Each structure stands twice: as structure tokens, then as C-alpha cells.
């Protein structure tokens, strides 16, 4: 908002924005719209609109095939569900165990070297964060073969970046007076970490771990699509043979698992913090 003053109070003129600002804003929005339209055209170049037009019929067809769910199939799902839980839990544990040292290397106030170690730690964090666990699973299945282990490792790798990022921010926000006081007693570096920093970040470690575990449950339900074990594997098998009633049941089970894990994580976080 801007007030343009001419000569006297009587000439005060109120404008929402100045002319140039308004113009720039309009041009900006216009460019965004034009660019979006352009992107839309590029994206849909190869789209076969006949298929899209046909979609309502396909959806109705799919819907009729998906209900009712095949409830008896649930007995096949218990073991994969147990595997899913293990993938998420063990993966979270591995991820947190590796993320803690990485976070200390990445935090400005604890890193041994700002110009050498810190960039490496930050790259580990970005690399792990920008690649989805499903892609990690895809890679790991190709490297160490299909199975639960690939899922555990994939979830672990994906968790490192997430946990380490939040944790190193927590380390950088610690109270320096407490750290200074421990240093002043003549404590060694590791003792300063143990007494000055760790007590301050313990609540963050618990909170972040439980939060990530909840996300990992969600992600581990689908890792089986690429062969990494768990309930997603049954999903893949059912999709391959177009057994839609089974697919519906699996969706329902996944949904229930996610809701339950969210509830558990909220409860645990509430109890700890």
C-alpha cells in the first residue's frame, strides 16, 4: 500500500499499489498462466483423448468389478502385514541410528569441519531426501534381490535424510549457555555432546523418530509393488491377474493400517513430549 503525496493534504491520493508494482504483478500472473497453458499442451501432446473420454465408463466398469471386496482373502494378508510392520520399524531404527551422527556432522555448531565434512553430510541428507523410498526399493531389489531386506534398507536410507535434517536443525537451536557451562568444567568434546547437547535434543529425537515411523508404515505398504516385501507384494500379484476384489480388500487393509499407525504415533508423541 502506498500514499502518493502531491502538494498538500487535500491532494492526498490513496492507491492500493503504485502503477509499476501493479503492472509487474499483472505481468507476473499473466506469465504464470501462459507458462502453465504451455506446459499443459506439452504434457498432453501424447494423450489419447478418446481414452480420457472413455474414462467414466472405465471407472464404472472398474467400480463394479472392485465391489464387493473378497473378504476371505484377508487370511493371506496377515504375514505380509507383519512384514510391512517389520520393514517400517527396522527401517526406522537403521535410519535413526545413521541419521544421528550425520546430523552432528551437518550442524554448524558441532561439525568437525565446515568446509569439508559439512557439505558431505548435507549432500547425504539431500540425496536421501530427494529420492522416494519406492525408488530406493527399486534400486535395492535390483541390487540385493527381492524380499523384506530390500524394503528395510530402502526405508532406512530414505529415513536418514528426513531425520537428520530435522535433527541438525534442532542441534543448531540448542541453548549455547548450557554447552558453554559444560565446556567450562574441562569436559572433553564427547562429554560436551553427552552432557550439554544430547539432553537438549532427546525430545526431538523421540518425536522425529515416531513421526518418521508413522510415515514409514505408510510407505512400506506399497514397497512390495517393486518386489520389496510386505503387503504391496500381494497388491502387485493381484493387479497382475486383475483380481480387483482382492485389490479392494488390500486397499482397505492399507487404509486401516495407516489410520492405526497415525493414531499410535499421535499417542506416543503425546506421551513422550
Amino acid at each position: 500500500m502506498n500514499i502518493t503525496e502531491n502538494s498538500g493534504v487535500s491532494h492526498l491520493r490513496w492507491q492500493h499499489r503504485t502503477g509499476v508494482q501493479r503492472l509487474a504483478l499483472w505481468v507476473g500472473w499473466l506469465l504464470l498462466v501462459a507458462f502453465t497453458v504451455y506446459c499443459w499442451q506439452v504434457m498432453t501432446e501424447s494423450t489419447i483423448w478418446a481414452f480420457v473420454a472413455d474414462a467414466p465408463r472405465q471407472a464404472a466398469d472398474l467400480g463394479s468389478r472392485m465391489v464387493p471386496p473378497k473378504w476371505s482373502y484377508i487370511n493371506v494378508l496377515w504375514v505380509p502385514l507383519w512384514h510391512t510392520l517389520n520393514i517400517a520399524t527396522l527401517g526406522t531404527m537403521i535410519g535413526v541410528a545413521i541419521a544421528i551422527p550425520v546430523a552432528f556432522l551437518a550442524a554448524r555448531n558441532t561439525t568437525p569441519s565446515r568446509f569439508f565434512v559439512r557439505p558431505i553430510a548435507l549432500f547425504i541428507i539431500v540425496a536421501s531426501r530427494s529420492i522416494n523410498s519406492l525408488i530406493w526399493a527399486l534400486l535395492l531389489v535390483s541390487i540385493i534381490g527381492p524380499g523384506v531386506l530390500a524394503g528395510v534398507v530402502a526405508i532406512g536410507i530414505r529415513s536418514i535424510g528426513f531425520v537428520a535434517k530435522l535433527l541438525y536443525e534442532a542441534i543448531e537451536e540448542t541453548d549455547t549457555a548450557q554447552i558453554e557451562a559444560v565446556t567450562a568444567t574441562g569436559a572433553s568434546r564427547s562429554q560436551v555432546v553427552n552432557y550439554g547437547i544430547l539432553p537438549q535434543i532427546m525430545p526431538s529425537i523421540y518425536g522425529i523418530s515416531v513421526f518418521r515411523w508413522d510415515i514409514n508404515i505408510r510407505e512400506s505398504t506399497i514397497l512390495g509393488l517393486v518386489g520389496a516385501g510386505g503387503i504391496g507384494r500381494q497388491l502387485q500379484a493381484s493387479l497382475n491377474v486383475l483380481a480387483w476384489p482382492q485389490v479392494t480388500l488390500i486397499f482397505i487393509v492399507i487404509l486401516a493400517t495407516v489410520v492405526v499407525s497415525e493414531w499410535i504415533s499421535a499417542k506416543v508423541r503425546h506421551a513422550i513430549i
Partner: protein
Amino acid sequence: MLRVDALSKTYATGDKALDDVSFTVEAGQVVGLIGPSGAGKSTLIRCVNRLVEPTSGSVHLNDEAITGLSRKHLGQMRRRIGMIFQEYALVERLTVMENVLSGRLGYVSFWRSFMRRYPAEDVQQAFALLDRVGLVQHANKRADALSGGQRQRVGIARALEQNPELLLVDEPTASLDPKTSRLIMRLIVEICSERNLPAIINIHDVVLARQFTQRIIGLQEGRVVFDGAPNELDDSVLTRIYGEEDWTDIEGARSEESAEDDVSEA
């Protein structure tokens, strides 16, 4: 005995915090360090145990140089110097006992301190100190469950747990009410005389400094402008340290506080 010779500190930003500061503190002597904020009081006491690295000059404790020590030897030197902080600087989420025992960190191995398995005499001494400051029943409470005065007493116990040869005290009363401030100052002075400890107390409150210390050093813009007995600290000296305008504020505060003191002591 503490000897400070020609100590200077210039920060990376170019601010000159200390300029050629020299003095000696004998055993058992309690020195009050006064001056306006930004005069370099806090930098000075942090240069003694090298929490802040001095630019030039030297510091000796009982004729051993502190300046120039390697990292490892610096740790061994720091454990001989107890420090008490403004806002207490306790590790809030640890118990009172862990905070006191952390005074022994320089003496025990990492593993022992990690497992909280301290030697029997350390634990015994920690209990004795907590008893001395009147907090033995709070040993298992978390530090953040205590009041301000109680926390500062834990801070004192932590410093004494080191069996220090020197006490550095940084604004011990900055966040305490006037009555608790006096109690804390009295406790520190008593302990120093019991143990024949030299101490530097960095304090902005001139009234408290006069009442409790044996000697006062006045800092202004990083230089020593006064060094003498509290009764030599007259209005003209205070004007030199704090400047004309601030000085009247302090005068006002002084009369206010002495009135309060009369009430609390009555």
C-alpha cells in the same frame, strides 16, 4: 593466584573488547568487576578460561600459563577453574545431581560419565555440596523444576564440585530478585573465604559489588579505569566508568534498593 598481563581481545567483527588489561588476584580475594554493558566484563572472564580466545597477552593461574595451552591441556586447566553463569546455564533436562556431577567431567573417562558411574568420593562430595547449598532433597529433580535462586545454587555446587583453584562468576544475580541476589552473593563470598578461593565476580549492580567484594575493578570500553577498595569508589569514579547520564540512574537504583534492603532485613 591469578595473573592477567596485557590482555587484549579484538573480535572478528573488528570490535575491540579488551585493551591491555593487567591485574593480579591473590588467594582468597573476591574481586568485583564493574562497568557498563559492552565494557568487556564478560569477555574478560571468558578469556581467563579461554571460552573466548584472547588476541594477545597472557593469563597465569598459580604461575602456570593458561594462554598457549593445547586443547588437551586446556581441558585439564579448565577443570581447575570453576565458573558460575548468568541465567544459571544448568543443563535443564538433566537432574540436579547430574548437573553437580558434571563438575567432575574433566576428571572421569567418557565411558564413566556416559554411564553416570562416578567415583564414590565424587558422589559423596556432590551430596555434601548440595547439603551446603541447602538442596540435598532436590537431588533427583530435573533442573528445570527448580526456582531461579535454587538453580543458581546448583550452579554454585557444580562449580565447587570441580574443587577449583579459582572461581569465575558471570553476572550471578542478573535474573534474580533483590533478596535472592543478596543471598546468592553472600553464599559465594562465604564459600570463597572458607576455601581461601580467589574469585572474579562480573557484576552490573554497583551496590551489591560494594557490599560484598573486597576489591573492585572498573572497566570502560575494554580498559581498566579503576582498581581499588570498594570505599574508594566515589561518585567521580563512577561517573568516569558509567558516564554522566547513566550514573544518575544508578544513584536512583541505589536508593531504591537500599530501601528495599531495609525492609527485607527488618
